[in-house]
């Protein structure tokens, strides 16, 4: 075969794979779903089912504006922690310590804020707390990589040790085991709401930013003659984002408004999505999760990437800890308990991040956290006993992992992954 005909064949073969019309795009999406590449579909269907169940059981209370804003508040803390967990899951490791590491962050911040003692400004207290959790992540990462101890064991040890640190700090510095937060800005994190006009400005920025990004991307792809999404698909994607985010903002504004903590989580999700998908570091994280040997041979500092992922996990746990402390307006001996780490890991896994590394998205961790929070919220409304709650939570996690494993089997059968 001459080179010329082969080249022609390449062109003929390479281009049509990417659909060019709206209908073709939808058809391909259906094909991928049937082949087992479900994307965020199970999470969204799951949310609808959960909402339907608790909406009916609670006779509509679940859907009230007030409960909707509560739901956003409940989601924030776990979502922040889950975003960090995604990074350790991506490199096929696990971090069981995030619950109590978040508590360490919250407690350190609260202690430094006490007006009667240190009385640090809020930013210094937050900075010190985040620095402390970063060091914790560094310690975990170094032990795991340099001493080759499985992350499961190291972070399990971390879970025990850091829960002890929380207990020591809270009992040492208070008589009743509860330390109240007095700083208005920190209290505002989970107890203040965006003013209506600001909420719409944020909404407009997000939607416009997304639209501009997609359009410039399409434009430069066309200039280079690469296959790109059709305009109609981009319009549909921007519209669905606008409708979803718009409905959220509008409905939250009927009650108290969009919680500040939710905005903080969205900002961090944006930053980490950018890091994961647009930077060399993010690419290396996926490579280390997919094939560490390939990453090593490509000259990637595999241990460095691993350590950085544990630091990200601890850092986001710290952010989550601050949000949770603000929500409760205090820290106590019980902070970080109630299987917080398991909820955060479950949120990441329900969000479609594989426990075997290499696949997962930061944003889907928020959806996963929303599922966990919805179930919690619904069961709380119904006043179910905590035993039942644990059983239900376990079933939700199991269902998520089952869906993942079944769709994975279909995917490998149809050669998608």
């Amino acid at each position, binding site marked *: 075969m001459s080179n010329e005909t082969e080249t022609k*064949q390449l062109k003929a073969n*390479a281009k049509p794979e*990417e659909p060019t019309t709206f209908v073709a795009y939808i058809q391909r999406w259906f094909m991928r779903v049937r082949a087992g590449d479900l994307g965020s579909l199970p999470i969204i269907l799951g949310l609808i089912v959960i909402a339907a169940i608790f909406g009916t059981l609670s006779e509509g209370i679940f859907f009230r504006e007030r409960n909707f804003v509560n739901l956003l508040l409940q989601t924030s803390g776990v979502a922040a922690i889950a975003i960090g967990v995604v990074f350790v899951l991506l490199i096929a490791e696990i971090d069981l310590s995030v619950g109590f590491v978040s508590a360490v962050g919250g407690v350190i911040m609260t202690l430094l804020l006490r007006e009667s003692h240190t009385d640090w400004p809020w930013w210094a207290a937050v900075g010190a707390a985040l620095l402390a959790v970063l060091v914790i992540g560094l310690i975990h990462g170094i032990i795991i990589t340099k001493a080759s101890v499985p992350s499961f064991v190291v972070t399990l040890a971390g879970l025990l040790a850091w829960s002890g640190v929380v207990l020591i700090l809270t009992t040492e510095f208070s008589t009743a085991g509860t330390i109240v937060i007095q700083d208005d800005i920190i209290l505002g994190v989970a107890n203040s709401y965006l003013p209506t006009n600001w909420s719409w400005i944020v909404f407009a920025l997000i939607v416009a930013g997304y639209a501009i990004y997609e359009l410039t991307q399409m434009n*430069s792809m066309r200039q280079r003659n*690469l296959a790109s999404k059709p305009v109609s698909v981009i319009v549909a994607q921007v519209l669905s984002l606008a409708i979803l985010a718009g409905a959220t903002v509008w409905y939250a504004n009927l009650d108290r408004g969009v919680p500040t903590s939710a905005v903080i989580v969205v900002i961090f999700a944006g930053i980490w999505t950018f890091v994961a998908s647009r930077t060399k570091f993010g*690419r290396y994280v996926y490579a280390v999760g997919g094939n560490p040997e390939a990453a090593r*041979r490509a000259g990637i500092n595999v241990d460095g990437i691993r350590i950085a992922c544990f630091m990200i996990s601890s850092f986001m746990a710290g952010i989550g800890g601050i949000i949770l402390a603000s929500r409760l307006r205090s820290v106590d001996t019980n902070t970080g308990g109630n299987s917080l780490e398991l909820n955060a890991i479950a949120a990441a896994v329900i969000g479609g991040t594989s426990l075997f590394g*290499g696949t997962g998205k930061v944003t889907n961790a928020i959806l996963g956290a929303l599922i966990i929070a919805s179930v919690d919220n619904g069961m709380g409304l119904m006043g179910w006993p905590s035993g039942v709650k644990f059983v239900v939570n376990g079933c939700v996690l199991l269902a998520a992992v089952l869906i993942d494993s079944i769709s994975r089997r279909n995917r490998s059968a149809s050669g*998608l992954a």
Partner: protein
Amino acid sequence: MSQKPLLELKSVSKNFGAVQALYKVDFRVFPGEVMALVGDNGAGKSTLIKGIAGIHTFNDGEVQFDGKPVSITSPRDSAALGIEVVYQDLALADNLDVVNNMFLGREKTTSFGTLDELSMESEALATLESLSVTTIRSVRQAVAGLSGGQRQAIAVAKAVMWNSKLVILDEPTAALGVAQTRQVLNLVRRLADRGLGVILISHNLHDVFEVADRVTVLRLGQDVGEHFVKETTQQKLVEAITAGELTHVPGMQEA
């Protein structure tokens, strides 16, 4: 074959403790030729390749690249010279797509420091096109969904993309079917036709006769013959592999 060799090993030796893995091996590759390296298990093929790739260093002997003596002490040294190795396990990340795999560790970035996906995609397409790799339908699909031959093609394309001068292929057809083997052998031939030196390690003499220009036979760590493929037969090669004459009997103390 009048020009000077691209890579020339003169009397290189390597021992691991008491084990003499290579003993005074001479080996030459010219630009634009496929040099096959054959030998039984334990003959020292891998040791030789690893020495060239800088995974370990030879204890003795001289290495010349482009006519100049060089010292290759790390994989980075060999990469800097333009030597790329495609190992048998290919080392592709299944979860990443074709473009990302081809650029892994050498990503292009924009002036903002973000990944420049578009120029990487263009360049990957151009490289695949220049190698006439026609079977890959989309460079944005995950490598997990590709066949063995396609994966081999990606690994080879990845190796030649960096202005490499010498490509070493370790058993590239070992796990492939008939049609895929054909595709990969065609690809190997095209690399040499582009002026690269190619070292092909193979157990399959059929492949060697189909694609190689010359063949070096190793036996028990020594080179027992360098032949033009056109001037030898499979029969002679098998004899050399199994019973080639040794200058040094393993286990015997040197005088």
